[in-house]
């Protein structure tokens, strides 16, 4: 048994329990939470380096052999997801240190936060569909709590929509799971893969595939199932919405990539064409929706949707280059999107509102905040040499390679429209002159706890942009494993390490 794989899951839960035990000592909860996220990040780095040197890592819990016990599997894709969870989790934990008051902290915020991180890591590591469902539920439970943290009236409105649609999605997932279990008699993904390739009732499998697509599509925010997302993401605390924006929809994308490569690979023509159409429409509707918004975080929320379209596009094109592009995009997007939400928090501190109409003059008051915004916004829109440029380049190149010119054109156009939204935010909140009494004052102090994570994430974007090659190689390796599921199957069922 490979003990290392357990730590990314166990550590956050340990931190959460310690925070619960320190209920009466919010200060200590705070420091435990920060130390917990740093240690978690270190463990995730260790896992990634192990995967890079030794290939796919498998842990059989309780040493029960593979199709019978619970398997934790970590290939390149999972390892990349883990490390981004570590990075975004740590950054938002630091930001929350600056954002929350002691009385807010006292009620178990950090416990929920770390349970959410633990659920994310569990979902990324699970090698078995039922456990994937359980981890999704763990995540949901924690995210419900975080979403209504603070209990302002708009949060209740948002939470109702978020809770109902997400419950529906998990019920759909469970339904698909039941049908798949009935068809194949197993829940281990590697084992299902072996059975599916020789299964005779392909039509039934395709029907089940579409149930899964709907379930994960709701989670990921695919067209036409995304309306819950912009209704909810702009209401909670900044740190919470940054964590959600960075991680939650991306778990849906991860699950789509995993399931539609390993499990439903019997009818690529049909399922992946459906995904392609959904991806193209997701990109378009997301970016057009953003153009109509006039609130900082709501614009960003709509952009999450259009970006999810890019990632699913990579899966739908189903070539090694496209998948590498999708994975590169995942890595880039999680960092940049979380950072943009954090920057919006700095804007909120300076201007006192996130309504673009009432904001303005931040560039004059705090030029470095404006620079931090510009780095992330340009990266999101895909300006060279930032990380978003390479991600978009890979995907467009991949779609041109297999003569999907229309999709490539949409991808380019959506990039340009992204610039439009970013310029809109820039003009309205950073550049626009305001009457002197409304201007944010130059002397207003911003908490260092908030600025450090924003700077760190911005630096990371620049670094990934300038040193794209190592990240690209990792994405290539991950795509290679996804395109050749027998590597995963061998590692899980026979303990063979490719």
């Amino acid at each position, binding site marked *: 048994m490979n003990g290392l794989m357990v730590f990314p899951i166990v550590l956050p839960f340990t931190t959460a329990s310690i925070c619960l035990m320190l209920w009466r000592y919010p200060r200590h909860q705070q420091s435990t939470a920060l130390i917990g996220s740093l240690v978690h990040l270190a463990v995730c780095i260790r896992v990634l380096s192990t995967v890079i040197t030794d290939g796919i890592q498998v842990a059989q819990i309780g040493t029960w052999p593979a199709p019978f016990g619970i398997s934790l599997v970590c290939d390149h894709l999972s390892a990349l997801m883990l490390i981004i969870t570590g990075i975004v989790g740590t950054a938002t934990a630091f930001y929350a240190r600056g954002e929350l008051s002691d009385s807010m902290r006292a009620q178990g915020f950090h416990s929920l936060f770390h349970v959410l991180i633990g659920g994310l890591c569990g979902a990324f590591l699970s090698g078995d569909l*039922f456990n994937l469902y359980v981890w999704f539920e763990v995540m949901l439970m924690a995210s419900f709590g975080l979403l209504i943290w603070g209990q302002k009236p708009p949060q209740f*409105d948002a939470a109702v929509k978020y809770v109902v649609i997400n419950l529906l999605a998990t*019920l759909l997932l469970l339904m698909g*799971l*039941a049908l798949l*279990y009935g068809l194949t008699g197993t829940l281990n993904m590697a084992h299902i893969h072996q059975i599916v390739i020789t299964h005779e009732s392909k039509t039934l499998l395709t029907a089940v595939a579409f149930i899964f697509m709907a379930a994960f599509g709701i989670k990921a925010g695919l067209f036409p199932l995304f309306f819950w997302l912009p209704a909810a993401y702009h209401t909670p605390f900044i740190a919470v919405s940054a964590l959600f924006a960075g991680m939650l929809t991306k778990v849906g994308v991860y699950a789509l990539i995993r399931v539609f490569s390993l499990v439903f690979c019997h009818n690529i023509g049909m399922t992946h064409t459906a995904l392609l159409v959904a991806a193209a429409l997701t990109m378009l509707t997301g970016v057009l929706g953003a153009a109509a918004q006039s609130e900082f975080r709501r614009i960003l929320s709509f952009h999450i949707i259009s970006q999810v379209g890019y990632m699913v596009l990579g899966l739908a094109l189903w070539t090694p280059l496209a998948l590498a592009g999708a994975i590169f995009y995942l890595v880039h997007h999680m960092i940049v999107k979380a950072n943009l939400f954090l920057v919006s928090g700095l804007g909120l501190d300076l201007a006192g509102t996130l309504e673009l109409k009432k904001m303005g003059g931040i560039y004059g008051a705090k030029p470095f905040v404006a620079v931090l915004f510009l780095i992330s916004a340009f990266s999101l829109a895909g300006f060279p040499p930032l990380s978003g440029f390479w991600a978009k380049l890979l995907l467009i190149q991949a779609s041109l390679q297999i003569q999907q010119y229309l999709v490539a054109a949409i991808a380019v156009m959506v990039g340009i429209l992204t610039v439009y939204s970013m310029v809109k935010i820039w003009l309205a909140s950073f550049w626009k002159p305001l009457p002197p009494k409304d201007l944010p004052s130059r002397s207003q102090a911003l908490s260092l706890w908030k600025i450090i994570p924003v700077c760190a994430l911005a630096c990371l974007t620049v670094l990934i942009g300038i040193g794209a090659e190592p990240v690209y190689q990792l994405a290539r390796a991950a795509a290679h494993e996804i395109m050749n599921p027998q590597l995963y199957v061998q590692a899980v069922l026979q303990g063979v390490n490719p």
Partner: protein
Amino acid sequence: METALAILSGALVAGGIYLLLSQNLVRMLFGLIMLSNAVNLMLFIAGGLEYQLPPLIEKFQVEPISPVANALPQALILTAIVIGFALLTFMFVLFYRTYQTLGTIDTREMQLAEPPEPPNQWHEEEAS
């Protein structure tokens, strides 16, 4: 038996979806309860129903001699029921608090998070 249960779970799904489409939070809650029960039933049927014996192994044997009931779906359902119960409890509380805070259980009247734009906004700006 399986056919009857399959039809029953289909009927429960239909009823659940119908209730979910309502604008009333309480109806939506009942819809989700129905749906989650329908899905649990589906898990149960998926495991197969034909064998009546419990999955017990005789003394000095390593596997059951005669065909027995499939224990795995029952474990899965048990997990799903527990999780579903926790989520529904949370939803009860959330909906009640929503009612206390917003004073309504009609989803059409919940527009705090997404306030509608005033219709003549642009004309007003031009006029001023």
